[in-house]
């Protein structure tokens, strides 16, 4: 005969007492396990929701970005790189930059590892009187787009104008009734009209585009240009300050201005949209965090209360058990069983209640948590928590049973035996 056997026999005899104690531990552990399972499910669900929102936003942003890129390209060049000493007042007043810079600047930029700039178009532009027609025109010399050496070639936004040809603005060819293939002279030099542009409603309508080399000769400005038009990319960090910094690092003698308010509006709209999307995700995160906090607070009040109530309940059950076993304890003490062995009769029972309750309670809580959380997933099984409750539930039961066990061990056998 040993203590363990005696405890097991006693449990079998007083099943209700054992089951009530067990139920108490199961309830306490299930509350802990259920609460943590629900929080875990909440975390998993939150992560899924936020991840889905982020993915959706990224996709939307990618679409927006692509749209914006296409729109921006359609809107034409949005950057103007000018000589540093060009007065912007004059630029806006005259519609062209009067100051000059070397044509080689564009090659320097094309050879650089620019991140923010796409498409480079050097030009020499001047408002002149077309002597042959007595018309004021903007003569623009272009040499076609200069490709970036380290980037994949892009489809040019502006085609090259071959020597001896020109492209004519709408107002000019319409007012003079000129057509493609007609021949005209500009300052004595012969040109064939290669293309007549549609109306654009701006200064382009009084512009004539010719080959840059020829423009430099006509305007007597060999090797010079007065602007490089460029397209700013739609990418992270491509704010004007970043672009300027990049251009200045290659061409310190220039200034960069952004043109085309439509482009800016669209960029702003896109940025606002991006910002709103990020704010929506952040709001969702905050909402999920708030919900979690509320559940955490609820659990942090409920769990200690239930643990305390469970401990009290176990203590009362054990006190009842001690009273019920008064005669048994009396005779055991009378035949010489030591006090600590009497205590062990109760403490071992408490450990069995704690261990069984922890095991049953953990899985009960897990199931309840899954039902309430609306998900049955393997991720919620937490071996560490299981081990933790397997350690702490017996400790809780031991603590609750300690005082009754001490009372049992301290019982005077003579009192019991005399009473009988």
């Amino acid at each position, binding site marked *: *005969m040993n203590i363990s056997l005696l405890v097991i026999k006693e449990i079998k*005899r007083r099943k209700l007492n054992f089951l009530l104690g067990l139920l108490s531990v199961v309830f306490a552990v299930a509350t802990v396990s259920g609460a943590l399972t629900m929080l875990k499910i909440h975390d998993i669900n939150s992560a899924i929701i936020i991840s889905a929102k982020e993915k959706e936003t990224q996709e939307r942003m990618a679409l927006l970005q692509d749209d914006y890129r296409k729109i921006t390209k359609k809107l034409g060049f949005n950057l103007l790189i000018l000589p540093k000493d060009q007065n912007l007042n004059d630029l806006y007043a005259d519609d062209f930059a009067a100051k000059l810079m070397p044509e080689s600047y564009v090659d320097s930029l094309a050879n650089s590892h620019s991140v923010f700039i796409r498409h480079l178009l050097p030009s020499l532009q001047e408002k002149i009187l077309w002597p042959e027609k007595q018309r004021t025109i903007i003569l623009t010399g272009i040499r076609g787009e200069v490709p970036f050496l380290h980037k994949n070639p892009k489809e040019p936004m502006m085609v090259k104008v071959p020597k001896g040809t020109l492209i004519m603005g709408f107002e000019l060819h319409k007012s003079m009734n000129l057509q493609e293939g007609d021949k005209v002279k500009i300052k004595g030099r012969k040109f064939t009209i290669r293309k007549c542009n549609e109306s654009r409603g701006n200064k382009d309508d009084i512009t004539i585009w010719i080959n840059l080399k020829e423009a430099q000769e006509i305007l007597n400005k060999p090797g010079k240009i007065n602007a490089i038009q460029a397209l700013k990319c739609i990418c992270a960090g491509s704010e004007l300050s970043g672009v300027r910094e990049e251009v200045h690092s290659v061409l310190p003698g220039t200034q960069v201005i952004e043109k085309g308010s439509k482009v800016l509006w669209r960029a702003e709209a896109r940025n606002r949209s991006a910002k709103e999307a990020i704010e929506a995700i952040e709001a969702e995160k905050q909402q999920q965090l708030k919900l979690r906090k509320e559940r955490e607070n609820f659990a942090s009040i409920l769990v200690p209360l239930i643990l305390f109530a469970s401990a009290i309940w176990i203590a009362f059950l054990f006190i009842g058990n001690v009273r019920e076993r008064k*005669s048994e304890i009396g005779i*055991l003490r009378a035949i010489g069983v030591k006090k600590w062995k009497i205590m062990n009769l109760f403490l071992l029972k408490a450990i069995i209640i704690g261990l069984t309750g922890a095991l049953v309670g953990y899985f009960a809580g897990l199931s309840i948590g899954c039902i309430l959380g609306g998900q049955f997933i393997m991720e919620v099984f937490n071996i560490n928590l299981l081990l933790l409750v397997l350690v702490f539930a017996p400790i809780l039961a031991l603590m609750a049973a300690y005082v009754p066990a001490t009372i049992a061990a301290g019982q005077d056998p003579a009192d019991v035996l005399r009473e009988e």
Partner: protein
Amino acid sequence: MIRINNVTKIYTTGESSVKALDNISLSAAPGEFVVVKGPSGCGKTTLLLTAGGLLHPEEGQIIINDQNIYEFTPENTAKFRAANIGFVFQQYHLIPYLSIIENVSIASLAHDSEIPEERAQKLIEELGLMERMHHTPAELSAGEKQRTALARALLYKPNIILADEITGNLDHKNASIVLKKLKEFTKSGGTVLLVTHDEKAKPYADRIVEMEN
């Protein structure tokens, strides 16, 4: 050998006190069957519990095998009791959820080593309980219960058996079995101190001591 020397035991409840034993002296030698008789309430059970180291007397000594048992620490008293004294009570005090063999073997809880089961079985057989060995106390008659309690007391071969009204609930046949077994115990050198007012014990007693109120 047990010697009860000038023992006085007083029960105090609040301000009132009752002298249950008043300067009692008694001794029983090894092999002696002593019956202590007296009317109800004269302190027979108190004498027995005091003699067994369960009730500390206000005065006097209990000497067993030349040792004053109340000079021990509580833990050593328990150890001494387990090794030297066997108790049998009128109410049997069997553990209700254990079988007969388990109730007898329960005495091993008081010892550091378990006694072979054969010893428990032999005692059960000697007391005519073999067929009931795996029954619980609820399934036994009063006589069978008392025989089980006696087997439990005898399991570790104590020097002294302290018995309290053990035949009070038994018929003549069962009383006779129990008393014969106690007599047998004294013949093997043990001491029996039986407190009772039952006349059935008289023929087995080597000495009868009368207690007065």
